[in-house]
């Protein structure tokens, strides 16, 4: 974490909220930078997809004034390894980036996922050249596992064995 982020963290709050018809419009209006646009469509896709998969959980990332981002986590489905969870579709609006929301949100998601009780591993993936994601997930104790055939770098978090 950079020194200014440590400072910001003292007075910027980050929360995760369930998505409802009340905050859906705010999520639809989240914006990304031009070079991040590929991710923008994926937020609406994720909410649509989650509506058909009860094991997918969408969350709005919010500060005290409202919605600033989005993430989704997946509990293991019928075809998945038991205990294998995943965090997908993390995004923070371009107007709110650089304030530590992404990292706080991942920490909150990790805490929420661990309440499920059977967690063995939490996976995520990002473009291998995405330095921001790499640093963020490394700071949250994810360990890179390698690039898969879909071209994505997969990283995994495991609970402390002690």
């Amino acid at each position: 974490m950079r020194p200014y982020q440590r400072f910001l963290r003292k007075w910027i709050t980050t929360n995760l909220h369930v998505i409802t018809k009340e905050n859906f419009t705010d999520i639809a209006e989240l914006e990304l930078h031009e070079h991040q646009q590929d991710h923008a469509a994926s937020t609406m896709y994720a909410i649509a997809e989650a509506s058909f998969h009860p094991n997918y959980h969408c969350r709005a990332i919010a500060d005290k004034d409202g919605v600033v981002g989005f993430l989704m986590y997946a509990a293991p489905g019928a075809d998945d390894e038991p205990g294998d969870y995943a965090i997908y579709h993390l995004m923070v609006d371009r107007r709110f980036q650089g304030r530590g929301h992404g990292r706080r949100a991942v920490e909150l998601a990790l805490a929420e996922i661990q309440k499920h009780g059977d967690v063995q591993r939490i996976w995520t993936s990002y473009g291998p050249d995405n330095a921001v994601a790499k640093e963020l997930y490394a700071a949250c104790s994810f360990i890179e596992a390698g690039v898969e055939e879909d071209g994505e770098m997969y990283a995994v978090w495991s609970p402390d064995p002690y």
Partner: protein
Amino acid sequence: MELQLKAVTRQNFDDITDLRLLDHQRDYIASNAYSIAQASFYPEMQPRGIYADGELVGFLMYVDLKLEGQPGEFGVWRLMVDLLHQGKGYGRKALQMALAEIRARGGVRKVWISYQPDNARDKELYASMGFVETDVDEDGEMNAVLEL
């Protein structure tokens, strides 16, 4: 050719979000992913895949306007046909089928639709089906209504 409307499900939603429009058409309509996401919070919104002889060719969504305090009225909020399948009359047939579904609910008096006022093709299509233009709303869209 047989046209069918099918509910959006876990099996077909991915293909529906992959349907494409021509560049100049994209500004006029929310993405299908947006519509399906939105509909998941509103039972009043009914998204449908449009199928021609079993092949997915488009998407539409109609809405019970009791959602907006207009009971007895419906709106067709989205209607799109994939760029590879435009010009084959699927839009018209799909809309007729949606109107039939809406009628079958009973008690519906009006169906609303809106489009860009300068879109001659939409104007002609909806006029030929009995929609009557009412006004241009604050978004610059022409509203038209069909009395059932």
